[in-house]
């Protein structure tokens, strides 16, 4: 996907976003980790 200039219009961004979604899929890479547990606080 070509970079969309920061000052592009919302319509330009929408077109870029839709093109990106159309060109890609939801395949999960094998090395992705899950979210972690937050440790006990710090009750100080």
């Amino acid at each position, binding site marked *: *996907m070509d*970079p969309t200039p920061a000052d592009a219009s919302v319509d330009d961004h929408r077109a870029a*976003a839709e093109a*990106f*979604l159309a060109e*890609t899929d939801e395949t999960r890479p094998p*090395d992705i980790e899950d*979210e972690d547990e937050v440790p006990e606080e710090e009750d100080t």
Partner: protein
Amino acid sequence: MTYRPHLLTQLGKTPCARRNCGVCVAGMAADRARKGIDPNNKYAWPPTAGDIRRAISGTWCRPTTLEDCKRAVKALYGVDMTIRYNISRAAFRSLLVSGRGAHMMIRYSVIHGTKFDASPNFYGNHGIFVNERRSDGFYLVYDPLADGRRAGIPKGPQWWPGNLLYAAGQAFPGTNADHVHASFTRDTEP
């Protein structure tokens, strides 16, 4: 103005609280996707962590994935999320500017030392909800840990600089340089 969901915070007395970042973010994403409109079914509205956790893993407090959250919000609220891995900054920006919210994966250690740090002893993998991007490049971030529980802990949604958001996203293990992993709501804006 972009619809802003209710903040769901994860810490407290609810079961699985310390593993509920993704669960809470999923709830905020569902709220955003529906623009606050109650689906009027048997589940509470706005979404609760309890309902979403039960849908994902019952009483088992296991870590969650973007796929878990996607399945849960579809089943509970009829919301369709779109997952993408290794998204460039430009694509992420376009998806946000054009009207989508994002469940984004970050590495929390990157947030330490900033005013946005809501858990100074947490270094791990975390989920946040990114609701919108401002024209100056800041993003409105809903961190489920930002509950203001004591002095120095931020409370409520915060505007994070884009560089911090992307740095935290690309630090998530298994992410390509200058890319992030996220799951997006539908485009809710005109």
